[in-house]
């Protein structure tokens, strides 16, 4: 009962947030000037009458509040309008790219989370050992390394120099990428996934281990850990049952945030690997100022972030019984 009430309250609370963000984005874009003028600037053969027709078609002649309300009405019916380039419905474009981004991001987020736990714990337990120094060094370097640059290095080494892996795309075209001489759609997909997923995993890993190590160091100093040790509870049980549960909280927050933001794709990383995902689609849309598409992607991502935050908050209560959701 408490959970349902909490959920409803949080969902109602989201409404002004979503409205506010959509108004801000909408105003910014339409303050930029006439989107039709921008979109057709490179086309010398277009006439003013044709431009006028396009403005009428996209409803750009109405006052701004009317345009916004119409957008909102369509948004409530899950309709983001049509792209200014090619006229494809925004929904269709998003649904094409969404799954490729989700596939890439889910793999990397899960891997980064799973690998960081043993490294973070061991670094904290063996503080100031060679293991700790090594991984602390690697993780601060990893936090500082531009993710897209890591992708570039991977392409230079593994694609151009060694020729092991494909440098671009999510699927082999026109022919499949041979893995050990075997051409199979599944192997082809894996071969394309390896590099971008590894790059994103390494980037996430650097943040996660730093956070978990700091959390573990803090927790291991607490009195209740000493009490647990004094009562002869096995070290492994202390680490995983008593210490980790408290140290992992900031990591869960980060995980929740990164799932939301991951839907945005990493625009630069996707561009480097020519990954057919939302991030790269967004970069293209932004460089052409394709407003309906920009609006659509921004809103989808904002909603994803809000939902991820909500799930994070609920999972707090599941992990830590002291936190009550009411």
């Amino acid at each position: 009962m408490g959970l349902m009430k909490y959920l409803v309250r949080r969902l109602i609370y989201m409404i002004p947030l979503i409205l506010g963000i959509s108004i801000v984005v909408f105003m910014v874009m339409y303050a930029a000037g006439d989107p039709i003028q921008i979109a057709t600037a490179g086309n010398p053969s277009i006439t003013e009458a044709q431009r006028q027709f396009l403005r009428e078609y996209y409803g750009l002649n109405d006052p701004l509040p009317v345009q916004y309300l119409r957008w909102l009405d369509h948004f409530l019916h899950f309709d983001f309008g049509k792209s200014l380039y090619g006229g494809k419905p925004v929904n269709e474009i998003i649904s094409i790219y969404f799954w490729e981004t989700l596939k890439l991001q889910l793999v990397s987020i899960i891997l980064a989370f799973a690998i960081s736990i043993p490294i973070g714990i061991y670094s904290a337990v063996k503080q100031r050992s060679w293991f700790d120094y090594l991984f602390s060094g690697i993780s601060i370097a990893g936090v500082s390394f531009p993710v897209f640059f890591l992708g570039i290095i991977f392409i230079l080494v593994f694609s151009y120099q060694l020729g092991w892996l494909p440098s671009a795309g999510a699927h082999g075209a026109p022919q499949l990428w041979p893995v050990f001489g075997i051409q199979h759609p599944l192997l082809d997909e894996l071969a394309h996934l390896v590099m971008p997923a590894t790059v994103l995993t390494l980037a996430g890993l650097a943040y996660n281990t730093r956070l978990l190590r700091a959390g573990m160091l803090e927790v291991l100093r607490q009195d209740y850990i000493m009490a647990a040790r004094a009562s002869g509870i096995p070290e492994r049980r202390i680490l995983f049952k008593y210490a980790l549960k408290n140290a992992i909280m900031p990591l869960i927050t980060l995980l929740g945030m990164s799932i939301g933001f991951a839907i945005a794709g990493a625009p630069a990383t996707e561009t480097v690997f020519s990954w057919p995902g939302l991030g790269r689609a967004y970069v293209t849309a932004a460089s052409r100022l394709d407003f309906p598409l920009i609006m659509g992607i921004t809103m989808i991502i904002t909603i994803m972030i809000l939902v991820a935050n909500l799930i994070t908050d609920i999972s707090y209560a599941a992990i830590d019984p002291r936190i009550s959701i009411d």
Partner: protein
Amino acid sequence: MVRLALRDRVNSEAQERRSASQWAVAWRRFKKHKSGLFGLGMIVALVLVAIFHSFIAPYPARPDPGAFSPLYEGEAGQPPSWKHPFGTTIMGTDVFSELVHGTVYTLYVAIGTTLIAMLITVVVGISSGYLGRKVDDVLMRITEVFLVFPSLLLILVFARIYQLVNPEPFWNVLGISIPVNLTMIVIIVAVFAWAGNARVIRGEVMALKEKEFIQAAKSLGAGSRWIMLRHIFPNILPQVIVIATLTMASAVLIEAVVSFLGFGDPNTITWGRMMEESFQDMSTTWWAEVFPGLAVFFTVLAFNLMGDGISDALNPRLRE
């Protein structure tokens, strides 16, 4: 009146003595922090390169970033050599020279973004934390909006719109030409870089507010503004310095991404812009791609190491 003036003098003297020794202690601790010192050293080197860039770079900066005249005499696409330490691009520009000239823009981005972002962070954090109630409510709702904004996406749209508006390329301020478009990117990045930190500062301020010395100042009749400026601010300064250093790191990183994606200032050659220009040809002239990338990496690393060092030095709790 006399008593008031006396109180102020005693107050400020005591504060100076205390803070001087506090900073001296922090500096002593920082000096023992090897990686922090290493970061500081790299930043100092970067600043020196930026100041003397026209003496250090063997070739002048491109007079017009759209044209590629400086070196185009059969020297295009050269691998690293004694003459061109980092090689030349496919367009015939010297990578080392452009990196050296680019330090100025990198520092401009780091410092400019951080100044603006920290101003917002500190003002929002302190007023929200100290004044509480209505002010806190309003400011925190605004902060939440900025926290859920997918900021990079909006930065790209802003940057692109500004590219198309195509203003005058440079402002001339006291004989220094300031790139207008890059300044806009600095402002946009800063506007999206304060929300998380403002929450941290708010938390600190809320804890400070309950301390005896603040209560004492209040009972002596000090106003809110006086307390916030003279008592709260000096006490959160260590935290502010750490956050500022880390903000510099992320500002450099974000500008590199924005420029690499082609949304940067068309009139300046930043490191990210160099990476964008060489990306298509990187299978042949890898040096033109890798050296700017390494420059970004080492700069961000330097700020991060310095930030870690300062944080350890100022926060005794983390020392053990």
